[in-house]
């Protein structure tokens, strides 16, 4: 998975680093509000997938559930990116305003890394 992260970072770097992320790890002992700052997981497609996609695309995208299985998906990269950005009315939320282009590329890279064997 480290390789995917590296690839995703390279791709993201090529297209421009993502907008400031909206996530941060609260520290139980922190005196003030948590401050959003960049961390490696912001561009880690696997982690982002578990955060926002795994409820529907089950087993990390390896099995069909509320949404389709994504391992081995034959759609083009452009089609998958478009689906992530625009969603599917009544079935899948549009993530185009929630995620930066770099984050969406990272999620795509994670999906493409999924092993379709045995699923």
């Amino acid at each position: 998975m480290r390789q995917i992260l590296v690839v995703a970072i390279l791709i993201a770097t090529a297209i421009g680093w993502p907008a400031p992320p909206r996530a941060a790890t609260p520290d139980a002992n922190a005196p003030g509000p948590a401050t959003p700052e960049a961390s490696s997981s912001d561009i880690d497609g696997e982690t982002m997938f578990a955060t926002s996609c795994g409820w529907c695309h089950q087993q990390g995208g390896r099995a069909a559930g509320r949404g389709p299985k994504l391992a081995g998906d034959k759609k083009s990269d452009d089609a998958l990116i478009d689906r992530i950005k625009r969603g599917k009315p009544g079935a899948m939320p549009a993530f185009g305003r929630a995620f930066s282009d770099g984050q969406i590329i990272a999620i795509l890279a994670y999906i493409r890394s999924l092993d379709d064997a045995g699923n």
Partner: protein
Amino acid sequence: MPTPLKRLTACATIALASVLGHASPAGAIDPAQLAAADQNPNDWLTYHGSYKSYHYSLLDQINADNIKQLAVAWTHFPGRSTRGLQSMPLVADGVLYYSGSYSRVFALDGATGKLLWSFFPELDDELISMQTHSPYNRGIALGNDKLYVGTVDGRLIALDMKTGKPVWDTKLVNSQKLTVGFTGAPLFVKDKVIIGSQGGEWTSRGPIFGVDAETGKKSWEFLTVAGTDEAMKTWGGESWRTGGGGGWMPGTYDVETDTVWWGTANPSPLYDWSGADWQKSGPRPGTNLYTSSVLGLDPETGKLKFYYQELPHDAWDFDSAVGEFVSIDRDGRKLMVHPNKGGFIFVYDRGNGKLDNVWKLADNINFVKDINPKTGELIGRRDLSAGVVNPPLCPEISGGVSWNSGAYSPKTGLYYKIAQEWCQEMEVVKTTPIVEPMAQLNIGANFKLVPPPGGKIYGHLDARDPVTGAKKWEVRYDAPPLASVLATAGNLVFVPDASGILHAYDATSGQELWSHNDGIGHVGGIISYSAGGKQFIAVEAGWGSLVGDDYAAAFGEPWKSMPKDTGALIVYSMSQ
């Protein structure tokens, strides 16, 4: 009109007149009528049938002896039923009101189905496209001369009951910022309309609102996440910013104690990875008040009178947002029965919210070994650390019970409630907690629906004592039904199932007496009412929902080809 119906109607009229002391304006529903709704057999004035939340009709024109003559009287198609029809119809003075997806509202002649008016609000389509739970609607409220409906873009709207024209439209939640809005039905209490926001996996703080019923002005707002100094201390550091705790189903009102009972959703992130050290570590250290809790609120001020947290530091998404609060009087005790999504039923003292009992409804539960029925302690809780969870977690994320309601018959003394039996394989993933609005779901796991140990997924309707849980009979289903249940004085229990079959059972024995195929799965409400001297059963058919979305992969057909954008209100009466 047959004699029993006449007698009941007369009794109800007398009872209402004594409560009201005066005649209310024609068509208007004053608070006293709502308080006495359980004695009024003709109408269905509030989501749970009455403040007692029995989902029970006193009507017995349709009964166990003549049920075979039940037939479709009329049907209404609301159109655009995206994610199914999930609401509860209401009836007042022979007019049936109901809502569909996109908060569309219809008023129909209860005897014929003739359209009286419709209301389609303009919604923020771009926001809807970004929401996970859009655009279904779970119901409406009636009070005085108005109808109230929430919207997924964070508004509460009042309509004139006679014309359907908007009277006021109040923006309560900045949904464009927080993602969540309103899908649940409002509750009318005295001069207030009370409604809870969505939210378990978002950064909102799950507010419950009290709104002036006449003017639409917000009277109060109760933050279910860290809404008091005491609660703030139960979120380590600034972790309350991760939010959750939506009050997304309508609770009820206890007239005697002047208390609103309302349940709240899980904290976010869901499936935090803190493990057994959850008091001090992980993304939200502490018990996380007032998530996965039952609240007692003052309807005038929204002030917290009491609370009981069913699952301290809920690590499993087994929230307390189920809106069913069943008032039971037993041996001088005044009790409140409330199902928790984890598959347990909690029983409280209605006077002070103290725990009286806990009993287990679902068969397959392993997120805890048990819950102490006297202290409420979660015995042997499985707090999840990062990595593979073994054995699979039971129940799965959709819960041992779902959002729809069971029914209680004062005639049989039995509580009829659906349970769901399923588990999930899962791997907890240490994600980055989302603390700023407008990000999407905030979950820390990958998971997959699997059957419970040693068998298949199944659901069951249980007939039980509501206080002790003693079981009298059970009916099993291959796929868990997801709709609400209706009991009637005709010794009947109606279960609209997931495949589209509406079943009627003998309330005493559980024997199936009648069924009819509505052609599409049910995920909504069912009621009974009287119009023109005739008893009707109205059920919503129309498949969808986040829970229902699992059925195609889990069970194949008919769900694989079942539309999730179609629905109908189907109304039955005796064919002769």
